[in-house]
């Protein structure tokens, strides 16, 4: 095997291991699948009963935002799992084997991608139940889900980086919550961000969450001409902006996480 096939083959072995682990921990799996359902019900019926968006139902407006939120929360599994494994001897075993060192992170992010896929499927089903609909072609809808999954995968590398820098599950959880909440809420995911005061609106306009949410809305057809959207470039060009974000996140955090992994395990 060469430098390209080895990390893929070994990464797949590690991904299978992680998938088995997830299956053996039903509480973890049901947690990952229940949370999005709870979020949908909570936001759809609590916020939905007080918030009006012009020209469309709030639920249709909301669901793409919830998808992105679930991706952000789901991708944290990557970081959290890594911090748990760091506490044990398993990485020593991996490092004494003739495997590709990068396979550990590749395998982890791939298995978490599968989990995020499962969570998206459950959410889409729940969305349909509460009244969310896709108004575009199946092709565009598929593109929408693909974009969300690509974001989930890239964001996994970001949480891996944070986790490998912090190294303990406690520290990781604290920081992850502190980072992900502003990221989710200072955005257009739950609200029409054009109503926000200027400084917050600027942040929301350039927040990647807003770009992904807007892109998902466009690809699922959950938009209305009666609604004003921001003039900011990432919102006006949400799909290319999202793709750009994915590339930037991967280019920055894949090498960074790989380096931090080497440091963390050779201490």
């Amino acid at each position, binding site marked *: *095997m060469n430098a390209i096939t080895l990390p893929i*083959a*070994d990464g797949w*072995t590690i991904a*299978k*291991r992680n998938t*088995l*682990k997830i299956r*053996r*921990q039903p509480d973890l799996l049901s947690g990952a699948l229940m949370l999005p359902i709870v979020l949908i019900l909570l936001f759809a019926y609590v916020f939905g009963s007080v918030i009006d968006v012009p020209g469309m139902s709030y639920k249709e407006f909301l669901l793409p935002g919830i998808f992105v939120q679930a991706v952000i929360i789901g991708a944290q599994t990557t970081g959290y799992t890594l911090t748990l494994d760091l506490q*044990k*001897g*398993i990485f*020593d*075993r*991996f*490092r*004494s*084997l*003739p*495997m590709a060192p990068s*396979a550990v992170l590749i395998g982890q992010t791939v298995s978490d991608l599968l989990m995020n896929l499962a969570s998206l499927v459950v959410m889409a089903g729940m969305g349909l139940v509460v009244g969310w609909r896709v108004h575009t072609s199946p092709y565009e809808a598929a593109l929408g889900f693909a974009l969300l999954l690509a974001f989930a995968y890239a964001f996994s590398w970001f949480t891996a980086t944070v986790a490998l820098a912090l190294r303990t599950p406690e520290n990781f959880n604290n920081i992850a919550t502190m980072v992900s909440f502003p990221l989710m809420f200072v955005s257009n995911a739950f609200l029409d961000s054009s109503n926000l005061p200027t400084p917050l609106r600027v942040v929301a306009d350039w927040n990647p969450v807003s770009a992904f949410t807007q892109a998902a809305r466009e690809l699922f057809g959950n938009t209305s001409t009666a609604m004003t959207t921001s003039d900011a470039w990432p919102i006006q060009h949400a799909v290319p902006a999202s793709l750009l974000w994915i590339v930037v996140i991967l280019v920055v955090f894949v090498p960074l996480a790989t380096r931090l992994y080497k440091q963390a*395990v*050779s*201490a």
Partner: protein
Amino acid sequence: MSDAIIAEGLVKRYGEVTALDELSFSVPQGTVLALLGPNGAGKTTTVRVLTTLLRPDAGRGIVAGHDVVGDARRLRAKIGLSGQYAAVDEHLTGAENLEMVGRLYHLGARRSRARARELLERFDLTGAADRPVKGYSGGMRRRIDLAGALVADPPVLFLDEPTTGLDPRARTALWDTISELVSGGSTLLLTTQYMEEADHLADQILVVDHGRAIARGTADELKDQVGGNRIELTVTDAAELDTARETLAWVAVGAMRTVPESLRLTVPVTDGAEALRQVLGRLADAGVRVRDAGLRRPTLDDVYLTLTGHRAPGSGTDSDPEPGTDPEPGTDPEPGTDPESGTDPRAQEANR
């Protein structure tokens, strides 16, 4: 290539602490070398350097003909490592753990599966093969971890304190397993804090302290190096213990050890029977009632104390932390408390 493992002037520093201080040794192919030493002596660091987990600051390591730094990937294909704490996945079954390791050695799917079953049988884990490791006992975990090191049938094995934290029965069982393993011709580097373990498993023992080799030889050679015999006496009351100590100072050729709780005194002497006769005479003159007296050869415990204990006066045999490499949660750092080593931990306390 007659040496399967060569360490040449290995140095590893952690800030101020020097974990390995130009450590050199070699292990001939097909033999077992035990690194014996207290916690923090550098045993684990040595294993981590030789298994490519840690880069040495200086020196060279060659394992199975491959350099630990320059040729790490090919080296890893030739070694098996089992650590201080079982490096297995709790949520995976025993079979799944071994299969995964097989895949990562690139044995292929079918061979990995067959090899996993084979090892489970050999390590008496067939019944637990399809249960998550989470439910395994400590001894079973060690066995599955050891099996993990053997998946690729590597010519060189590293076992880092394989029995630390195990109860005596599980330890003896694991000893038998390890003895069986090396009878097949593998080279083994073993680290241990237990003299008995080194004596039992190793062809050669390397005593390490503060990252340096301080003695090397077979168990018998090391005992000879410490020299002489030991007179062991049991007296009748505590006051007599002090009297005996004073009375016998002239005959002792090294530090005497007293165990107040069991009223026991150990006196190193040069000539055996004659010394014993004289000692008993002197004690009778001093009015000490001797309940029990005997002559014995030095144990590895004596070797260990003579070689390491006196080198660092004031510090115990279990001091000197080795940052980041010796976590050993819940293990016992005191060699003397090993129920099987046949010594009393208080003997060392009294000696400090």
